[in-house]
């Protein structure tokens, strides 16, 4: 197998607070290959956004990467200085956030913002950068780009703004795009357009995408592989068809059953009792054990490591053959 674009190994992110050290991300490992979309799902507080922020080096103090390593194209990026990291962000890693209004400067024309990015990272001349910006806007499906390039962000609708943000993320032809809830603020009909666009661009440019969202429907349609996070840990990671249709981890099973779908009649949704633990009170052993219907003694003391189950990796003692044999 060729080298993955992004390789995260045992990533640990901790926040120092007055109540002690909170571990927001606890030894998470995954890879994303060229042209691949990895969906990262989980409920609020599961650590999915923090994982994205850690990769782009935007963890704000008091948080810090407390362990593990992050490699982009084989090169470690978690140890770079802030100045070096600034050259990686925007050039080698593009970013798309939930709210397109906050990622665009309201006082500058959208064209100027794309041109600025292009000139900072690619050294194009002003004229060439403007031509390239028009091409980019056309590529993300903005009608009449030669005219719209001189518009201000407030003149664009929500969906069009998110397209501008995608154009901005693609400007320097990055190897990796981190998309954090890119469609959450949009209406469903527009959401579908943005997902299709993201999939097409990723395929055409061979860009790796880390798609962070709480919307399993978006993941099911857009992602190639899915990582399910729970309480800062990876519960299950595998091909989308396998994780969605045939999940293994009891949390993933509960999560999929809890989502109402358009295609099946369920009289009751399966519900997981309780709520995700706060970071200050993560139980010993498996973090899911107090809510797990299949919990047994070992789950309360021994933390499960992700082990291969079929095409996936699952962190659950149920699938630990060695333990069962013993």
């Amino acid at each position: 197998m060729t080298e993955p674009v992004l390789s995260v190994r045992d990533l640990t992110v901790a926040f120092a607070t007055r109540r002690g050290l909170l571990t927001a991300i606890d030894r998470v490992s995954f890879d994303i290959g060229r042209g691949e979309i990895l969906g990262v799902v989980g409920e609020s507080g599961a650590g999915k956004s923090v994982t994205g922020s850690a990769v782009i080096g935007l963890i704000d103090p008091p948080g810090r990467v407390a362990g593990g390593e992050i490699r982009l194209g084989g090169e470690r990026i978690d140890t770079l200085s802030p100045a070096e990291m600034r050259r990686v962000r925007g050039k080698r890693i593009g970013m798309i956030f939930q709210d397109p209004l906050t990622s665009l400067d309201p006082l500058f024309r959208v064209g100027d913002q794309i041109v600025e990015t292009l000139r900072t990272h690619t050294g194009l001349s002003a004229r060439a950068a403007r031509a390239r910006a028009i091409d980019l806007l056309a590529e993300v499906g903005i009608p009449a780009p030669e005219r719209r390039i001189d518009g201000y962000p407030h003149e664009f609708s929500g969906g069009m703004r998110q397209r501008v943000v995608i154009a901005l993320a693609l400007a320097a032809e990055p190897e990796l795009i981190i998309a954090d809830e890119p469609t959450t603020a949009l209406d469903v009909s527009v959401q579908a357009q943005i997902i299709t666009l993201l999939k097409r661009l990723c395929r055409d440019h061979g860009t790796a995408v880390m798609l962070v969202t709480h919307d399993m429907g978006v993941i099911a349609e857009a992602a190639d592989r899915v990582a399910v996070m729970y309480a800062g840990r990876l519960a299950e990671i595998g091909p989308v068809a396998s994780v969605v249709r045939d999940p293994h981890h009891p949390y993933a099973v509960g999560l999929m059953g809890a989502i109402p779908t358009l295609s099946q009649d369920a009289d009751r949704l399966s519900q997981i009792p309780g709520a995700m633990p706060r970071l200050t009170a993560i139980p010993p052993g498996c973090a899911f054990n107090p809510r797990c219907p299949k919990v047994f003694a070992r789950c309360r003391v021994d933390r499960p490591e992700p082990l291969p189950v079929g095409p996936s990796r699952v962190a659950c003692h149920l699938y630990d053959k060695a333990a069962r044999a013993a």
Partner: protein
Amino acid sequence: MSAYVEVTDLRRVFDVSKPWLNRVIEREPRRFLTAVDRVGFEIVKGETFAIVGESGSGKSTVARMVVGLLPPSAGEVRIANVSMTDPRQAAARRRLRARIQMIFQDPYASMNPRWRVGRIIAEPIRAFDLIKGEAAIRARVGELLGLVGLHADDARKYPHAFSGGQRQRIAIARALASQAEFLVGDEPTSALDVSVQAQILNLMRDLQDRLGLTYLFISHNLAVVRHMATRVGVMYLGRLVEVAPSRDLFARPRHPYTRMLLDAVPDLAHVGRARTPVSGEIPNPIDPPPGCTFNPRCPLANDRCRTEVPALLDGVACHAVQEGRD
């Protein structure tokens, strides 16, 4: 069976003009936004009527007019044969008020953070003077907390001690405190994580079965609506475009907008689905297109659609369907 809630020709216009001085200087006329335009539907006792639509479709405005939080510009709402607008029925309306309650989207904003939960839930009981004596009120609050799956001791805590899902349970307990029989939920689970959403949706259905409640359920999430509703109304730009029993609507959508919406929703069943997304976005409601407001995005639009507003006939407001062109 006679309808419990009857809504006829409901209309709401908002004045979105600039201030007087600006209008004089800039020679601009007054501007009006028709948020809800001639909406009519009935809700039978014990059923769940859901209204779906994208943002700006007017679904929340309808909900607010039905509960009486917002006076309609025209049209009438009748609940249990009492007009909510006729001044001659003010006394009957006052008696009915306690039976109608609303559950809001944001469980963090809908409760006074300085009040203990017991006082929050007891407020409707005291406001409508339903139970005499502190001990009896306390007993009733405990009973209500038990009904929504919390503990009677929780009455002593403040809202901040509860998670989003638990707060939504408290909001439901408060709604039921005045022996409500008609609950209006405006996106009651949109702010919750999916596993918690499943808990609240199941709770709402259980309470409906036990207490014979009638629901008006507002949501943008089609899968949730499918799970909850007996009948569904689809809104687009202030108008009801289709009304049908839930099963029929999801099996055989008739209005082109409903079809587009159902096709656009990312769903768990659509792993890796390739699709042709619909083009366009919702037009500006201040300046909606003439005729059928959906005509600029509709594949079936013809000249009649661009000039003449279709009426809701036999559950669908579409010239193409009525002419058999679909």
